[in-house]
């Protein structure tokens, strides 16, 4: 054996020892690789995607297991992101947003051993868990609050892209407003019909200002980053905004009436936790008030805006919906 060969042999032995020593310890976590693919808007959109980010961060914090993520910057990257993460050995992948259903359908078939969780859309495959939210139930509650906070009796709604999901927010909101004020009016605007509608705050502000001009004094924004412009315009005009998906009350303290919360963070956390514990199942779950999947936010930033009477009314409605005595119709296309 030459000197060189000997050194190489020693090195290989050493490496082998290191590898063997390393494998039993972190093996548990190395085998389990959770991942998230965010949708357009990005993980700091202060709304839908950010909720997933918080859920994933909490999982990482609680378990010490690092997760992988992928930020989509244009529509063609969704499939690429899902496939890349699956190929690189992710155990469970969360796909955020209704638009990932089509790419996920392809990728999930290619990687039957990888578990996928799809948020906001249904997909019937043996390795996909679909989680949708009963947005209409949460929107019903903020509709009640909007109608009670409104002085003019007219409230506004600014949606992002005009899709059934957003119409579902609207359907619940309208029912909530009418439930409280049968004569109440809802002014509706959609920011657009293309994905650009999710990230055009200037347009959101313009839509909100137009609604204020027509008498609205509370406006509910279900429009991703476009909604930031809506809330901004409401704060500028001295009106009230209502946030969506994440708790957005802190964006303009005292100017955001409440936020319609979708517990996307809980859904992501549960998806990871179930996959880790081995209790993960495929199928569809619709999360509503009963499952604590949707709700409204009260914190120190909007405490003063919610009167005891408002809180009582909204809690009554909540209890009614959970008990089944009060039904909220979802959007019917």
């Amino acid at each position, binding site marked *: 054996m030459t000197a060189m060969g000997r050194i190489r042999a020693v090195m290989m032995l050493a490496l082998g020892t290191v590898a063997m020593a390393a494998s039993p310890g972190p093996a548990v976590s190395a085998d389990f690789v959770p991942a998230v693919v965010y949708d357009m808007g990005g993980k700091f959109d202060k709304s839908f995607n950010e909720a997933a980010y918080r859920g994933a961060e909490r999982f990482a914090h609680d378990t010490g297991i690092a997760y992988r993520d992928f930020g989509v910057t244009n529509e063609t990257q969704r499939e690429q992101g899902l496939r890349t993460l699956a190929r690189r050995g992710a155990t469970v992948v969360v796909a955020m947003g209704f638009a990932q259903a089509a790419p996920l359908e392809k990728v999930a078939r290619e990687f039957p051993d990888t578990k996928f969780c799809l948020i906001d859309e249904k997909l019937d495959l043996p390795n996909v868990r679909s989680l949708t939210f009963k947005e209409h139930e949460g929107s019903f509650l903020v509709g009640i609050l909007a109608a009670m906070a409104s002085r003019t009796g007219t409230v506004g709604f600014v949606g992002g892209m005009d899709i059934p999901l957003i119409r579902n927010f609207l359907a619940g909101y309208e029912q909530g407003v009418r439930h409280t004020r049968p004569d109440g009016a809802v002014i509706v605007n959609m920011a657009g019909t293309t994905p650009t509608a999710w990230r055009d705050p*200037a347009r959101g502000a313009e839509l909100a200002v137009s609604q204020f001009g027509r008498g609205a004094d509370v406006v509910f924004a279900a429009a991703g980053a476009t909604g930031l412009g809506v809330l901004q315009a409401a704060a500028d005009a001295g009106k009230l905004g209502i946030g969506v998906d994440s708790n957005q009350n802190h964006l303009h303290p005292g100017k955001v009436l409440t936020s319609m919360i979708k517990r996307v963070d809980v859904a992501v956390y549960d998806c990871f936790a179930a996959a880790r514990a081995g209790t993960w199942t495929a199928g569809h779950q619709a999360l509503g008030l009963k499952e604590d999947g949707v709700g409204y936010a009260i914190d120190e930033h909007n405490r003063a805006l919610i009167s005891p009477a408002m809180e009582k009314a909204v809690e009554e409605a909540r209890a009614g919906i959970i008990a089944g005595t009060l039904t909220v119709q979802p959007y019917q296309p």
Partner: protein
Amino acid sequence: MDDALTTVLLLLDSTIRVATPLVLAAFAGLYSERAGVVDIGLEGKMLAGAFFAAATASAMGNPWLGLAAGVAAGVALALLHGFACITHNGNQVVSGMALNILVAGLAPTLAFAWFSQGGQTPLLPGSARLPSIVFPGVDAMAGVPVIGPAYAILFDEVNVLVLLAGAVVTVTGFVLYRTRFGLRLRAVGENPAAVDTAGLPVARLRYQALVVTGVLSGMAGAYLSIAHGAGFVRDMTAGKGYLALAALIFGKWRVGPTLLACLLFAFTDAVQIRLQGVALPVVGVIPVQAIQALPYALTVLLLAGFVGRAVPPKASGQPYVKER
């Protein structure tokens, strides 16, 4: 009657707000294209202006520094465009498009590196945004019919950049048609060889035009991020640079018609916002998609039927090469 008046006034108010960035960007394009440099990079310059204005305003807490930074970013990109296609005779469309792509990627990347908020800047507080001017006498005029509400709705709060845009239009009309600089600028876009023969520097004139372009497009971007809006969001110009370019072509590269084209685009947009979900007589509620296509359908109709041929400046798009 009162309701109808208020509706019309609100539409006009909205038109002015939506038109402001279009006017600034279209007039930015007017300077460079009249000087013979095609500028398809308005979108990129606006986006850069929006980003640097918001980033600076957020870091320093001063909107005027933000505006200065936005303008500086616009000028820097305009000069880069000039370096590529005036100094080095590059293709003007390619260079402009390259700027658009560069900024679309660079702005979110820098935002991510500096603010770690996923390609956005933090939301700006009121003190870091360009102020609105409250015109005096709104209350005093309130009793006067027609003029009272008109004054109250249109002039109660006007952002400084809206006023500045108005000034830009007036000044441009004067400069382009009434000054020596304007004459030379137009000449260099029509027949640079003649300008050269007269002993004037073609390249320097075109660079001067591009600096003005940079200033105005930077302002257009700043309007979006620190005046009308409050912070930078990825791709926030959302095609307004291209729309401004369309308005410029629509306006046949002239001051008055270009202004009108911008106002028309903004007005149809304001109308479509107002018409969404409203039941109209006879037809009922029109689907959102159809209403949102209204501005574009109108543009096609007008372009095809009423405007006639849009003839660009003769030397536009061609680099000037002195024959030797």
